[in-house]
């Protein structure tokens, strides 16, 4: 490949990488600032341009004095996301297996239509369901609770699990299920003893996607919780609208997304095994 194209290519990649990394570096740098570092304009490199301070980071854990609590929202986010993802993954995987292996018919409704019903939930803008969910949870006494959010998130995340797993199961030959049954397994036994152990890559991908979309939800957490059960996205937005110093805000932001960075590594390693290519389709 001619040198010109190579240079252009590498330049583009470099520029884009810089663009990708920039907000994170900025947040990191800002989190180490204090009032002195900000007043006269933008500064970037600690020690060179300003004196770093751990004020931002410390403020997150001393909620009594600063009023900024990260531990609570983090724990809530973790609990809600993990619970909802687990339930969605379980129910969604079972449903996906049923749809990929068996034939259902209710009048003119066939497998394809049921699958479409699951997947089409992703098209729904949150706003359409927000108010009814609000009233529904209010009736059930589940507003501002972990249980209420989990319930709503299940409806959000199950379609993702179904979408990924249906695709995945399509790649496992039915002959394997048949062999398991011939060898003495009932259909349910075949699923749990044979298919499931061979579905780990798909389950990981589906699980990761569920966790990501659950962790990142803002709108439903915003409408359905207030003071008792705050999730991270809601917490940071309320910090943003009140007078919160940038250094605390940046530190908060970085901690909020840190689990996701870990997940990015996991997802990438499964991608290089080739199983994500099919799942993303």
């Amino acid at each position: 490949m001619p040198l010109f194209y190579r240079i252009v290519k590498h330049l583009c990649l470099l520029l884009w990488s810089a663009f990708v990394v920039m907000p994170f570096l900025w947040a990191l740098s800002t989190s180490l600032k204090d009032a002195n570092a900000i007043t006269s304009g933008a500064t970037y490199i600690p020690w060179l341009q300003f004196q770093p301070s751990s004020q931002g980071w410390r403020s997150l854990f001393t909620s009594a004095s600063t009023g900024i609590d990260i531990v609570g929202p983090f724990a809530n986010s973790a609990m809600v996301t993990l619970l909802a993802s687990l339930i969605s993954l379980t129910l969604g995987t079972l449903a996906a297996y049923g749809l990929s292996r068996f034939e259902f018919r209710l009048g003119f409704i066939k497998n394809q239509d049921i699958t479409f019903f699951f997947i089409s939930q992703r098209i729904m803008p949150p706003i359409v369901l927000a108010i009814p969910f609000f009233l529904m949870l209010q009736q059930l006494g589940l507003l501002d609770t972990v249980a209420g959010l989990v319930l709503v998130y299940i409806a959000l995340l199950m379609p993702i699990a179904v979408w990924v797993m249906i695709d995945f199961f399509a790649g496992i030959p039915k002959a394997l299920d048949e062999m398991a049954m011939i060898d003495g397994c009932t259909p349910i036994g075949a699923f749990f003893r044979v298919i499931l152990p061979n579905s780990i890559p798909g389950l990981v991908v589906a699980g990761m996607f569920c966790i990501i979309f659950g962790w990142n939800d803002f709108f439903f957490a915003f409408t359905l919780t207030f003071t008792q059960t705050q999730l991270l996205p809601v917490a940071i937005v309320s910090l943003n609208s009140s007078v919160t110093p940038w250094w605390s805000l940046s530190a908060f932001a970085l901690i909020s997304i840190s689990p996701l960075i870990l997940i990015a590594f996991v997802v990438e390693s499964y991608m290089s095994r080739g199983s994500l290519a099919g799942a993303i389709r």
Partner: protein
Amino acid sequence: MLTLNNVAVAHSKSPLIDISHKFEAGKIYTILGRTGAGKTELLRVLMGLEKLSSGQILLDGESLASRPIWARDMALVYQQFINYPHLSVLENVAFPLRRQKFSKHAARERAVHYLRLVGLDQLLGRHPSQLSGGQQQRVALARALAKNARILMLDEPLVNLDYKLREQLRDEFPRLLKETGGNSVILYTTTDPREALQMGDEVVVLHAGRIVGAGKPESLYHAPTRIEVAAVVCDPPISFVTGTVSGGQLVLAGNNPLTGVDAAQLPAPGAYTVGIRPDSIEPGGPINARVVLTEISGSETIVHLQFAFGAAIMLLKGVYRFQADEVIDVSIRVGALLMFDQAGRNIHAKKG
């Protein structure tokens, strides 16, 4: 004893039409037929993977169709090597035994015994993905044998293996299959006539969803009862030409009377289909034929010839070369000809 009475499967890619047969335990039945004849369909309906449209399947007098797939006491070796990817070779063979309520220890012991039988006792801890195709198929075979099931089915098990492996396993199979004892009905499907005739105690020929012939390999080979049987039972295939019997002569297509035919042996006058075995055409003789194609297969030569009355294949032992479009002299051994009437029946074959 496995009995099929008027078994039919209607809505399917290869439908089955009125299959009736009795299969005895302890014998190897090779089911021979072209692709699409219904061989796999037959096995699938026996397994319960397809639904019967009509008819009965009885095992020792009891209806098999009423039992679910997992309770039918069968074993299967599939053409695509199907093993459980997440289990080791040993666990693979032990899997059905554990489902049969064997203890872990007993299952393993039994699995080791059968793996030794197929020559894989050194690879117990490996996973199927680490094995070659032939080894994977042996694992599948060991698993099927270890079950000691009443019905043992093998669906073209050698078709995805390379030539040498296929030959080797073809010789081993009869011994291995008999190891299951006299208790199992063994069904082996194939499209390869050599495999069918070599391995089967009885050959069942399937054509378009029907059984068109069944019997000992030698009798099917020498005296195929129907034209559909003759078409599959020989490799290279039997060549068919139309002919008529009239005026004490056998006249082949295009008004070519065949010499050397004993008038007393001829059937009643009428139209017939004549079957010419490849080994009944010999070089040197009164008939002219043009060479269309020469194939050398191992130590045999297969020559595609064009006669005045149609095309036929000649099989020669040894390696010979002919020029394309070369005209050679051949003779046809009249005594080995097969004759089929308009309904496809072999006029010389006995009924039943």
